[in-house]
């Protein structure tokens, strides 16, 4: 598990000014930490697709945004992601909390095409099953943030996004503390 405070410190260190998104159980600690103000500034949206468009506008206006949403919201955001930050070649860190990762680990199925049986099994979260294939299909590079020792990947991912002038995702696989 990574500490929300460590992630916030890493975001500040790399110059992120705004965090656009929606809270979930995994990111609740981070949203609570930033509720009182300070940077990065929390920018709430009603649905995740809004987050990518708002982040694009923030970046055009000179800010350094990042997006923080759940993988379910990522699935909702396809056209917004494609038509804004990706098509605009905006260097953007996308922190995606990975609902269902632990269940997926238990099942052990991480490769191959998800089949209808697996997608409907009650002990498997289909959002988790579809996350990595979706990122691959969308051409969104990604890495994993499992625990505290992975926090430096925030900096590495932002650097990569800047180098490639494109969004880069960091999948947060466990609840922040």
């Amino acid at each position, binding site marked *: 598990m990574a500490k929300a405070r460590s992630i916030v410190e890493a975001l500040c260190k790399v110059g992120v000014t*705004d965090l*656009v998104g929606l809270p979930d159980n995994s990111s609740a600690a981070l949203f609570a930490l930033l509720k009182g103000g300070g940077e990065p500034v929390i*920018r*709430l*949206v*009603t*649905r995740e*697709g*809004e*987050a*990518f*468009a*708002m*982040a*694009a*506008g*923030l*970046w*055009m*206006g*000179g*800010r350094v*945004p990042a997006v923080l949403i759940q993988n379910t919201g990522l699935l909702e955001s396809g*056209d*917004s992601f*494609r*038509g*804004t930050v990706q*098509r*605009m*070649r*905006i260097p953007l860190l996308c922190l995606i909390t990975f609902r269902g990762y632990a269940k997926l680990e238990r099942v052990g199925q991480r490769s191959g095409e998800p089949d209808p049986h697996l997608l409907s099994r009650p002990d498997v979260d289909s959002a988790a099953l579809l996350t990595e294939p979706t990122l691959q299909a969308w051409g969104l590079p990604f890495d994993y943030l499992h625990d505290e020792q992975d926090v430096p990947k925030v900096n590495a991912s932002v650097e990569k996004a800047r180098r490639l002038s494109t969004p880069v995702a960091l999948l947060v696989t466990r609840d922040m503390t």
Partner: protein
Amino acid sequence: MLTKQELLQPLASLRTDEVVVTTMGVVRPWSRFSDSRLDFASADSAMGHVADLALGIALAQPHRRVICLNGDGSLLMTLGSLATVVEAEARNLILFTVENRTFEITGNQAIAGAGRVDFAGMARAAGFSRTYAFDDPACYARALPEILREPGPVFVAARVEPGSEGPLSRSRKGEPVAYLRPSLAESAHRLREALAK
């Protein structure tokens, strides 16, 4: 009902250093009245998300007004944006909804709820404290100077006659509209540069 010219010409004549973000059926008409480096066409992008994009610019540039010329079909796609704008308290954002009641660039098919949806009423219900609805060009022209001065977020619904704008594209060759010649990426990066000066 207004023509697009009656909507856009007064706005262009009063506009100073505001960012103007257009989408769908007003992208090309706006270019007949303006050729500013602070114009941005949300074309070849993601339909429904121009208000979110304009909000982002407004939040990043709190000392500059941002005018968003959204479509009614586009707004219906992301009605939650109204609440997002209110939550963000962007005092420099003016959100127009150009209400032609059709998907103009795909052939003027009627939008859901055409003529029945009260856009200004929805904005009010979402928490906008300043909302306007116009279907008379003279009333609109009289009110516009004050609309552009007052603190936002402001919502303006303007009933306009459907036009005959075709599909939007971006092309370096043969595109008559200047702000549609660069790619979307180039346009976005150029606006960031312009706003940094």
